[in-house]
């Protein structure tokens, strides 16, 4: 065994031991600092300052900020958080650093507008973000769709939504269904039907995996909403005929009001609890407005028969 070999082996072993020890220590430190509010810190709040500090390499910085947005939103979303404190400034920062980065507006508007815990519940901020995006990218027709989506589904303003879809339909390269959407909203067509039409077209016209997954989830939720309304109609008819609420689906089947056990898009049978229709697994349908368990929807009102779906949702 030569001297060099001995020194080399000793140094290698020592290095490995020290690096292992430091890794273990860092993990311990991370465990202690787990609750540190680092997630909610913006570090530098001014987009103008950050842009200046980037020394012209603002594109890369925008990508890093966008990744931080995705990580921040994902972490909060997974934790079913009700507050997304720095989501809006992070998105504004990213858009300021790279105004042409379209995913910021497409996804950012969804992140901002959806009700907690699905999003920050700030549709006004979402609309403002997309308007800024349109100013910077007037030829991007998808942004008008994003704006129309926020106005229509999150702000319930079908007039502004129709105007947004109409403006977008005039952009070269826009999908023909944008014009149909504008017309449907102008004609005050049924919300569920219009939404189903929109998501079906998005599903058909995109290759983007995230958008496809979202469209499929939305379509499933719309089917649940539609199913629950249909089942509620059947229950109302049963109540009119018998003077009482049904206690099981079997009673509705026997009365000829249903052809079989009603199942949701995942194949689970809908529950019938104290005259209330519920999906078996609400977590699988994040956008439904009907069929939620008691207390799950803001605005649920108690009745003498327990909770009931609010009237404005039926």
């Amino acid at each position: 065994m030569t001297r060099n070999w001995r020194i080399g082996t000793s140094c290698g072993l020592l290095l490995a031991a020290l690096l292992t020890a430091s890794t273990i220590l860092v993990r311990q430190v991370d465990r202690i600092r787990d609750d540190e509010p680092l997630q909610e810190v913006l570090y530098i709040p001014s987009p103008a300052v950050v842009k200046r500090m980037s020394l012209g390499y603002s594109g890369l910085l925008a990508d890093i900020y966008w990744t931080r947005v995705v990580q921040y939103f994902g972490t909060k979303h997974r934790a079913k958080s009700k507050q997304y404190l720095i989501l809006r400034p992070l998105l504004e920062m990213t858009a300021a650093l790279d105004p042409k980065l379209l995913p910021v507006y497409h996804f950012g508007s969804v992140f901002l507008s959806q009700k907690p815990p699905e999003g920050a519940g700030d549709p006004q901020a979402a609309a403002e973000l997309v308007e800024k995006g349109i100013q910077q990218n007037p030829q991007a027709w998808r942004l008008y769709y994003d704006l129309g989506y926020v106005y229509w589904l999150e702000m319930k303003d079908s007039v502004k939504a129709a105007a947004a879809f109409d403006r977008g339909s005039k952009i070269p390269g826009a999908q023909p269904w944008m014009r149909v959407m504008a017309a449907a909203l102008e004609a005050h067509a049924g919300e569920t039907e219009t939404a189903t039409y929109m998501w079906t077209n998005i599903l058909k016209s995109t290759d983007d995996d995230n958008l496809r997954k979202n469209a499929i989830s939305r379509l499933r939720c719309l089917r649940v909403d539609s199913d629950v309304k249909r089942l509620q109609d059947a229950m109302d008819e049963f109540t009119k005929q018998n003077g009482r609420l049904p206690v099981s689906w079997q009673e509705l089947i026997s009365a000829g009001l249903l052809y079989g056990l009603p199942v949701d898009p995942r194949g689970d049978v809908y529950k019938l609890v104290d005259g209330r229709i519920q999906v078996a697994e609400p977590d699988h349908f994040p956008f439904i407005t009907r069929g939620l368990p008691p207390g799950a929807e803001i605005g649920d009102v108690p009745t003498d028969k327990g909770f009931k779906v609010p009237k404005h949702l039926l």
Partner: protein
Amino acid sequence: MIGRLWAIAFNTYREAVRDRVLYNLILFALLIVGSSIVFGQISLEINRIVLINLGLTAISLFGIVIAIFIGIGLVSKEIEKKTLYTVLAARPVRRWEFITGKFLGLVMTLTVNALLMSVGFFAAVLYVSHRLGRGDLQLVTAIYFILLEFVMITALALLFSTFSTPVFSSIFAFAIFAIGTFGEDLRSIARMTSGVTHWAMTGAAYLVPNFAALNVISQVAHDTAVEPKLILLNTLYVLAYTAAVLTASVWIFERRNLK
């Protein structure tokens, strides 16, 4: 004269390669491959954009750092090692030839370095996009502008090297690079002033190198075309500015007592 310039330039290139300058290529390759994998997993819809932004930013920053750290030592190192006097006295080399040769040698090093990085960069773009189209020619324009950046920063580093120590030269060079990225802001501020301040500010704003117009990385990342007129004007500007800086370097160097 051409032979002497070539000899100095080639020796400068050889020295840089011997100094293991090209080792940064390994880091660059790791950065490109790593970022493609990491950003693909943790971000949303920006794989190609990240690759272009990161790849071009890395080519630019690595080159600028190399240009400054080698550029500041081109003259001062020769003085320190007492080899400059030998070159200038023992051989028929004029001082301006020495400065120009050193400049060309470093530009050559940076060009080879950037071209090798570009090969890796385009391979990564091909991997992510599955094909290279005509639109990707814009990426070549961005790389060309990066090379123009190198030309200017090399000349500036060399200028500082002719009259200052390496530490101060590097500080000056990095500072002038940072200020140069604010060139457009400086000119806007100058327009808002009046009187003597206006003339002083305008003079200062046009004196600093205009690096801002040479950075089109964000633009090409979004497949936006670079105007041919900008390519022409940037080329002419860099040639003029670099010639001015080299003239200043030669002028200072000619007046230096090297004994």
